[in-house]
């Protein structure tokens, strides 16, 4: 039996990804044993982040400023917009540093299963952005899934009137991948997307 405050802490921690009730108890105990070094700073950081964070009204990214740092950065290439499904995908691309343009976060994919329709996604704003004169290319970086590619095809249709170049990420053999271990689908996509050397 523990105090209701501790039970509440464990209950909330158990809702975090990767944590179940048992590991939540371990985390809670770890925090309780280090109140000054961990618990209070963590609580302060959570409260400060919750207070400051907001979605960017331009691209849908989450940041402590609106517009977000990427949209507000004049050094970013305004001519290329990379469209991603989720903020996690934006972070993944930012880690690589390969895309120096701007982003647009859709907030999901079209899904018959979950009843997600075009109006539920951040597509209207993307079309408006693509019509700006500075934008020359829209890169569709949706996942290589049925839902991701269906969404990409839908966006291509919607962007037809914007007069911008639309491209998508390549599908195929990953770096370090051995053909023998690749699934048939990836191999098929790789063979279809082959290019001359």
């Amino acid at each position: 039996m523990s105090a209701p405050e501790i039970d509440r802490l464990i209950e909330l921690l158990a809702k975090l990804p990767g944590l179940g009730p048992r590991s939540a108890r371990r985390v809670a105990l770890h925090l309780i044993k280090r109140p000054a070094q961990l618990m209070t700073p963590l609580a302060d950081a959570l409260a400060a982040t919750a207070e400051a964070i907001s979605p960017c009204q331009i691209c849908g990214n989450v940041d402590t400023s609106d517009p977000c740092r990427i949209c507000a950065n004049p050094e970013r290439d305004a001519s290329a917009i990379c469209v991603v499904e989720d903020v996690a995908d934006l972070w993944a691309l930012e880690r690589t540093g390969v895309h120096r343009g701007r982003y647009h976060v859709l907030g999901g994919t079209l899904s018959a299963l979950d009843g997600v329709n075009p109006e539920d996604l951040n597509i209207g704003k993307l079309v408006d952005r693509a019509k700006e004169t500075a934008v020359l290319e829209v890169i569709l970086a949706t996942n290589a899934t049925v839902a991701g590619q269906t969404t990409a095809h839908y966006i291509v249709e919607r962007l037809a009137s914007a007069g911008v170049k639309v491209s998508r990420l390549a599908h195929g053999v990953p770096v370090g991948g051995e053909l023998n271990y690749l699934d048939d689908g990836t191999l098929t996509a790789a063979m279809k997307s082959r290019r001359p050397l």
Partner: protein
Amino acid sequence: MEWTDEAFVLAARRHGEGAAVVQLLTREHGRHAGLVHGGGSSSKRAIVEPGNRVQSNWRGRLPEHLGSVTLEVERSYAASLMDDPKRLSALAAACAVAEVALPEREPHPAMFHATQALLDSLADTDDDVWPAVYIRWELGLLGELGFGLDLSTCAATGQSDDLIFVSPRTGRAVSREAGMLYQDKLLVLPGFLAPSEGTEISATADDIRDGVTLTRYFLARHVFDPLNKPLPGARDRLTDLLKDPPKSP
């Protein structure tokens, strides 16, 4: 309880952090759900993509349990359709419609074979025959569910030639002679669905548009309206895409 069966993945919903509840169209066990351990993880997510043909092994303590299922991919149809919006949309529409329309755990081997034919047509043929195959697949689905259309003879005159309409009330064909007065109330019967004497009639763009309108009407009336559900968005998107003549990739 345990069984092994060939199946197509119709849909998968994440369950908890790493698992997924998958809906399968199996050859012998009909539409059947099961829990795929790790099906929501990045390493196994590709296995539960809609349209995958898989070898499934279901285990449960009691037959009525959800049970767990292990899948081995035999062919990933979606991978070869990713670049073609219309074919990909047809795959998504077929999976979404079957997932709602087919009753769970009721064997429909004919639908399994029809789905196999549809996916083969989508993935392996370069010509424009697949929209007609899709429409026949939906007609087959209606038939399997007990709402098959009778397109062999005219409901009014009994004649078997010059059939160009379908009655929205009875689902029976109507001849030009009997239907012209009521044409604004009748559905159009595409030429390739009308009975022909051994000759294969190819489907035109208008036929395809009339065909998807015809099957959409009866699917909504007999299957989706009684369930108080709209037709899946993927099905409506396919209708929109097929307004234009189909093109080969």
